[in-house]
């Protein structure tokens, strides 16, 4: 044993050593009885910096923001029982959006498990369906291996959250540490490299296309910046149009002429029409989500579909595809480009020109058009100005969930991957504010803005306290329409405009609230004062809550109503103002 004695350490020491060896610099957490030994270790070292949040959900979203903006795993530490249950929303969010997280949870001592001990909950039971994998560590000698394995599972293949539940006695027990080394898992082997025959077949199909479209998604971002570069190269070579999901925004530059805008429920007319009318669809790292497909049986009925995805369970789940290519986006794109060049493929130029002519016609509908107003700030206008005034700056955007999120996707032009952090799959209100904390931690010099809604932001508002504590100059830009606008819009369209419980009654004074936290509060009420206010916000090197008062009843268009097909979009002009004005009842008029 003598030779190994220096490797003997307590479970808590093993955890900190494993984190350091994994290159972890920041963890987001909240202490409690079942993790005190780990906090004691945190106190006695300097490699890993702990960020104290105000609610465990905040820790998970901060870690997600950190992960999405860096490509590295986000790490969370919470206590047993309520600490773990509070983390469940963020874990589920990370699972849905394929975000790599490692979440360490404290657990009651092994001999008390199952006894309804104080702050006990069945953490592995509760988190089993909302993690990629989870572990309960019963023996301190398994701890180091499991932790390294957790990082491996979280970050490879389709990324996702992994929970490691560590009973308190295991944190105290002494055991052997092993380093990360070469983690070869017994069973888990994600497929990275695609089958070359399939790649060739796919490239042949791509070359034969007359009305092609690239439909790209979050998988390109998961795959790393290299994938975005290759995607740009491939689009340049082919001259094909490209649209992306919400999760894929930024992988392809919104300023490029091949860019059709986001597709799906609130996507542009041209993107959805092109998806509907294409003859070859090249899906790269997107999962045919129901926000994209609309009515499945009417989804892109005449196309042959190629689907590049690292997860075989994404293939043929919602939409049958003709050519699944299982592998990592960057690897597949690299192979496709190589094969394309080697076979000296040429696109069908006349057909493509025809196709672009058609697309330009759709484009000329200008589906994101809205009526500007002089008296009130239109929410779309607010984002256009935010974009214009931050353009060229090193900026990261997070969002909450609702209309503001969709307007952010439509009107903020993302040029680079990892710049938009948003809750797409789960649609978690309260995601954006804590996410800024993770992003700003990772990018201290950058401008980090949460495009927020008045209702969402209150769900995790307490994290302002975290921002102030760590002097994180995050900007919480609230499109304050005094409604749960997205809910209200659906009620208007689907429920006879009966606005059941969707009015944001008794909102706090956000300026005073900011000041109460020790942050800076700002407000803009008229279009004329917006620019100066945004410029001032950018200049302030402290956390800011910006209460941007916007038109309360604006709707987010275009929209494919649920259950409809892509060519049955509602455009803004289809819904007359009178209809929208009617939404203001006598009661609402008094209040707004």
């Amino acid at each position, binding site marked *: 044993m003598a030779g190994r004695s220096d490797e003997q350490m307590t479970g808590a020491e093993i955890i900190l050593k494993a984190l350091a060896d994994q290159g972890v610099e920041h963890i987001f957490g909240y202490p409690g009885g079942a993790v005190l030994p780990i906090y004691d270790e945190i106190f006695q070292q300097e490699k890993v910096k702990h960020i104290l949040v105000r609610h465990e959900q905040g820790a998970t979203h901060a870690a997600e923001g950190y992960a999405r903006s860096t490509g590295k795993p986000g790490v969370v530490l919470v206590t047993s029982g309520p600490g773990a249950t509070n983390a469940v929303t963020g874990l589920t969010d990370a699972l849905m959006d394929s975000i790599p997280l490692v979440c360490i949870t404290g657990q009651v001592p092994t001999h008390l498990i199952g006894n309804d001990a104080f702050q006990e909950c069945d953490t592995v*039971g509760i988190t089993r*369906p909302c993690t*990629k*994998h989870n572990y309960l560590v019963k023996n301190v000698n398994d701890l180091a291996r499991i932790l390294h394995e957790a990082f491996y599972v979280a970050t490879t*293949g389709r990324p996702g959250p992994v929970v490691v539940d560590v009973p308190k006695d295991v944190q105290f027990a002494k055991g052997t540490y092993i380093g990360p080394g070469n983690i070869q*898992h*017994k069973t888990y082997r994600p497929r990275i490299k695609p089958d070359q025959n399939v790649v060739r077949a796919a490239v042949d199909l791509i070359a034969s296309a007359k009305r092609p479209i690239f439909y790209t998604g979050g998988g390109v971002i998961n795959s790393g910046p290299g994938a975005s570069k290759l995607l740009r190269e491939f689009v340049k070579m082919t001259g094909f149009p490209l649209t992306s999901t919400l999760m894929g925004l930024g992988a392809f530059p919104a300023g490029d002429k091949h860019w059709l805008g986001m597709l799906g429920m609130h996507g542009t007319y041209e993107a959805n029409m092109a998806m509907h009318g294409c003859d070859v669809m090249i899906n790269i790292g997107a999962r045919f989500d129901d926000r994209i497909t609309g009515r499945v049986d009417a989804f892109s009925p005449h196309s042959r579909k190629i689907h590049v995805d690292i*997860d075989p369970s994404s293939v*043929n789940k919602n939409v049958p595809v003709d050519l699944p290519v299982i592998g990592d986006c960057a690897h597949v794109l690299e192979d496709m480009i190589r094969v394309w060049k080697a076979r000296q493929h040429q696109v069908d130029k006349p057909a493509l020109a025809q196709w672009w002519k058609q697309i330009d016609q759709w484009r000329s509908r200008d589906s994101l058009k809205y009526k500007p107003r002089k008296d009130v700030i239109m929410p779309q206008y607010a984002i256009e100005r935010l974009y214009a005034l931050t353009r060229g700056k090193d900026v990261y955007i997070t969002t909450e969930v609702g209309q503001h999120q969709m307007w952010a996707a439509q009107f903020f032009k993302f040029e680079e991957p990892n710049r938009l952090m948003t809750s797409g799959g789960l649609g978690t209100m309260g995601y954006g504010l804590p996410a800024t904390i993770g992003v700003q931690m990772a990018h201290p010099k950058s401008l980090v803005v949460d495009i927020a809604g008045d209702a969402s932001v209150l769900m995790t508002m307490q994290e302002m306290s975290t921002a102030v504590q760590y002097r994180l100059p995050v900007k919480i830009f609230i499109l304050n329409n005094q409604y749960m606008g997205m809910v209200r819009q659906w009620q208007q369209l689907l429920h006879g405009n009966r606005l059941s419980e969707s009015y944001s009654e008794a909102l706090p004074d956000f300026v005073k609230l900011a000041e109460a936290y020790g942050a800076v509060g700002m407000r803009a009420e008229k279009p004329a004062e917006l620019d100066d206010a945004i410029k001032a916000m950018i200049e302030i090197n402290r956390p800011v809550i910006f209460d941007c008062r916007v038109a309360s009843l604006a709707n987010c268009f275009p929209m494919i109503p649920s259950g409809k097909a892509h060519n049955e979009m509602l455009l803004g002009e289809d819904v007359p103002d009178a209809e929208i004005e009617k939404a203001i009842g006598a009661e609402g008029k008094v209040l707004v």
Partner: protein
Amino acid sequence: MVDNEPGVLARVIGLFSGRGYNIDSLTVSETEHEAHVSRITIVTSGTSNVIEQIKAQLERMVPVHSVADLTVQGNAIERELALIKVTGKGEKRMESLRLADAFRARVIDATTESFVFELTGKTSKVDQFISLMQPLGLVEVSRTGIAAISRGPEGMKI
């Protein structure tokens, strides 16, 4: 084939209930003690798309070694074991014994008023035997669920 580790069965079953797939029969046992490998045999139903989804979902679970669709491979052997308790006297008792003999069920426990039969076979055979026992004094049934294996020399990969 799965790693025989705590929670793995809950994981597999949770997938079925969480995603709305049904389980008609479920059989689990460690098959290779040294390798810590267990075999889970599940009978489920669905369109070929659903079955493909189930396979893909199972395969991506971290502790799962491999998944085989024995129905699609064709020609698989399926067996079930049932323990069947029957009580009765006189002619009914004799009749149950005669039928047991015809079905090659073994008597593994007997009292003056009861038998416990052990029967192995296809599910349909077990079903049939049980329904015949119904009027003869059937008291209790315990069934293992289906264990299955493919024919021929090929083994399932671990």
